[in-house]
């Protein structure tokens, strides 16, 4: 089932009637087309409106504006139970008083009229789904007697048993430990492939989204920042936010300048950037974009070397770096050529991204223009529409105007998040 979101917007009204400015635009003019049978990852920092988007698709929350289509049906006004969706909640919401089997049966028992199944059919269907998610051994246990991963699979089974047209998963792995998370996400992938149900998977963990999704949607403050295949979004970020949000270790940022077709970081001309107009830019260089080169034009002070088996990570500093350290990943052979306390790099063109300092939109140069266009064409061939946010976010200005109390509240929200995604939140905050 194809899912189309048109101009989807959700505004939570301000609690304080006098201060209309305190309203929250949780989702802002969201346009997206999800092809049938695909698994898409909805990715963004905490509070960017992922759950809200999901709840609108599920029908639990009513959009302030915009339309939702499943296939050709407009479901915007439809009640949740009539949409044919399965929803897995952020913390599963399994009924604690029912056994695994009763939990999975519950949606079936609610079916009415023609759709109503006989008792045997219900049990058979339950059994079948339980097998699919491999929890058939625990049918008579209560949720409290299951591990997190098992509970999560029960939640998926309960969502699947009605044979939904669309499966919605809200950060289903956030409560699991690292190993289980890895394992379960493979399992979700497998189940999705087996059933072919269009699936939307919400997460704020970029690695999770990258590894599981057919394509990802990166969000910030309720706005789509970019859509595309995971690798594609990583290799060709449309704006500063996406570049910074994806990648571990994170991208290295420098303050730079384009003058006469050359890119300057500080006083050094580090690279030719044909076709880019003169402007002040942020320079993003992926850790794997550095080449050790005695004749290289980027000079950094070495502060440490981490050996990671096949590769080594050179930790260095540069006065124009916007991060405390510059982290580059090079092949271990290069370690011999690092002598003294400075190191010189040349750069791989396709790992260097420029962003306009004002709009934070990508500045393409050289071969990047062609690659970018080729990828858009590829996406179009698969029936997907390229979407990328360019220019400043509509709400960022408001953000600065907000009273200190509101800002503090926001940072508290960030503080609650798991340690794993902390760096993103931090880089978010610093901006």
């Amino acid at each position, binding site marked *: 089932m194809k899912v189309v979101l048109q101009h989807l917007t959700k505004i939570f009204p301000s609690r304080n009637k006098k201060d209309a400015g305190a309203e929250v635009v949780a989702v802002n003019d969201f346009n997206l087309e999800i092809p049938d049978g695909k698994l898409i990852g909805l990715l963004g920092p905490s509070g960017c409106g992922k759950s809200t988007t999901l709840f609108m698709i599920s029908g639990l929350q009513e959009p302030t504006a915009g339309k939702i289509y499943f296939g050709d049906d407009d479901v915007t006004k439809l009640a949740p139970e009539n949409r044919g969706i*399965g*929803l897995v909640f952020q913390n599963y919401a399994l009924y604690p008083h029912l056994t695994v089997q009763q939990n999975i049966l519950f949606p079936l028992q*609610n*079916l009415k009229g023609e759709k109503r199944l006989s008792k045997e059919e219900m049990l058979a269907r339950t059994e079948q789904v339980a097998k699919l998610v491999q929890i058939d051994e625990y049918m008579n246990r209560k949720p409290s007697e299951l591990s997190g991963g098992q509970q999560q699979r029960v939640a998926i089974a309960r969502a699947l048993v009605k044979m939904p047209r669309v499966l919605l998963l809200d950060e289903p792995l956030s409560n699991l430990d690292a190993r289980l998370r890895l394992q379960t996400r493979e399992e979700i992938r497998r189940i999705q492939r087996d059933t072919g149900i269009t699936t939307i998977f919400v997460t704020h963990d970029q690695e999770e989204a990258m590894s599981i999704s057919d394509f990802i949607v990166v969000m910030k403050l309720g706005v789509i920042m970019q859509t595309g295949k995971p690798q594609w979004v990583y290799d060709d970020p449309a704006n500063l936010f996406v570049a910074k949000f994806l990648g571990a270790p994170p991208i290295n940022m420098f303050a730079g300048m384009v003058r006469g077709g050359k890119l300057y970081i500080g006083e050094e001309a580090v690279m030719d950037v044909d076709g880019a107009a003169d402007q002040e830019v942020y320079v993003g260089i992926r850790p794997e974009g550095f080449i050790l080169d005695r004749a290289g034009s980027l000079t950094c002070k070495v502060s440490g070397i981490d050996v990671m088996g096949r590769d080594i990570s050179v930790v260095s500093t540069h006065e124009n770096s916007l991060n405390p350290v510059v982290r580059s990943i090079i092949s271990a052979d290069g370690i011999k050529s690092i002598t003294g306390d400075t190191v010189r790099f040349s750069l791989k063109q396709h790992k260097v991204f420029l962003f306009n300092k004002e709009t934070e939109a990508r500045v393409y140069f050289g071969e990047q223009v062609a690659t970018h266009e080729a990828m858009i064409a590829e996406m179009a061939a698969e029936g997907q529409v390229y979407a990328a946010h360019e220019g400043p976010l509509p709400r960022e200005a408001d953000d600065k105007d907000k009273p200190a109390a509101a800002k503090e509240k926001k940072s508290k929200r960030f503080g609650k998040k798991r340690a794993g995604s902390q760096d993103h939140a931090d880089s978010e905050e610093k901006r």
Partner: protein
Amino acid sequence: MKAKSKKRNQWKAWLYLLPMIILLLVFTVWPIINTVRIAFLCRWDPDVGAIVGYDYQTSMLENVHYQFGINNFINVFAAGNSFLTALGNTMLLTVLTVPISTMLALLIAVALNSIKFLKKFFQTVFFLPYVTNAIAIGMVFATMFGMIWPSPAKPPTSVGIINTIIEAFGGHYVNWIDRGSSYWANIAVLVTYIVWNALPFKILVLLGGLQNVDKQYYDAAKVDGASRWRIFWRITVPLLSPMIAYVVITGFIGGFKEYTSIVGIFGEDMGPYGAPGKLNTMVGFIYDSIPHNQGKASAAALILFAIIFIVTMINMYVSKKKVHY
């Protein structure tokens, strides 16, 4: 060193608890023990403050202290039908009021929990009976259900608001609580009153439980397509079952101790005019017995305790099976 300071702290703790312990011992523990003792003492004479011996023929007034037996219990049942009447009334009222008030409280709590507008106002309204004197409410009920009826031969000169309403709808007035009123009319009034009185506490407890239920279960149920009715029975009731069990158990205990409601409506005669004792309850029976036979009163109190104990045990057993966590 550490153990020593721990010991000293324990002493302090005991010291702080001491006043309460003394009060409990004097006013609760000792009376309980004494009740048991008196219940099993034969022929307790309150005037003598001792047991009166059997042998009246020889005019020997033997003070046989501490002679135990079940004589008082025999007396309780021998007291004509009055004990069985009291037991029957108590059971009937309990069995009727506990389910009715629990169901009503559950419905009202769910309704209160789902409204947004005037929520606080209605919460207060429903809580008011809790902070109103039970006897006072009883008198109000007596006025509402009663009528002014100077001569049984003629129709009443004036009827209460309930009968006025019945007549407004074309019905015939009912003699709810006055002279010659029927047993079932009396019971109906009492049930109404007791339910009314029991509601606020139950609503409060259930509403508290409801507010602790994670809203996500309801979202999940909505996505799963459950009807309101099924959500109520399959989600709300089971998730509230610990609260419901609590309310039912305390309801039974309270029901078996029913007394003030009857006094409130019918006065200390425990029955409509002309039929005193008709609506007597266990506690009423105990109170009645105290002045002339403490032994009998104590024995009746022990019987009441045994009944409450057994019923509570059954309740606990059932709720262990039905309460889900």
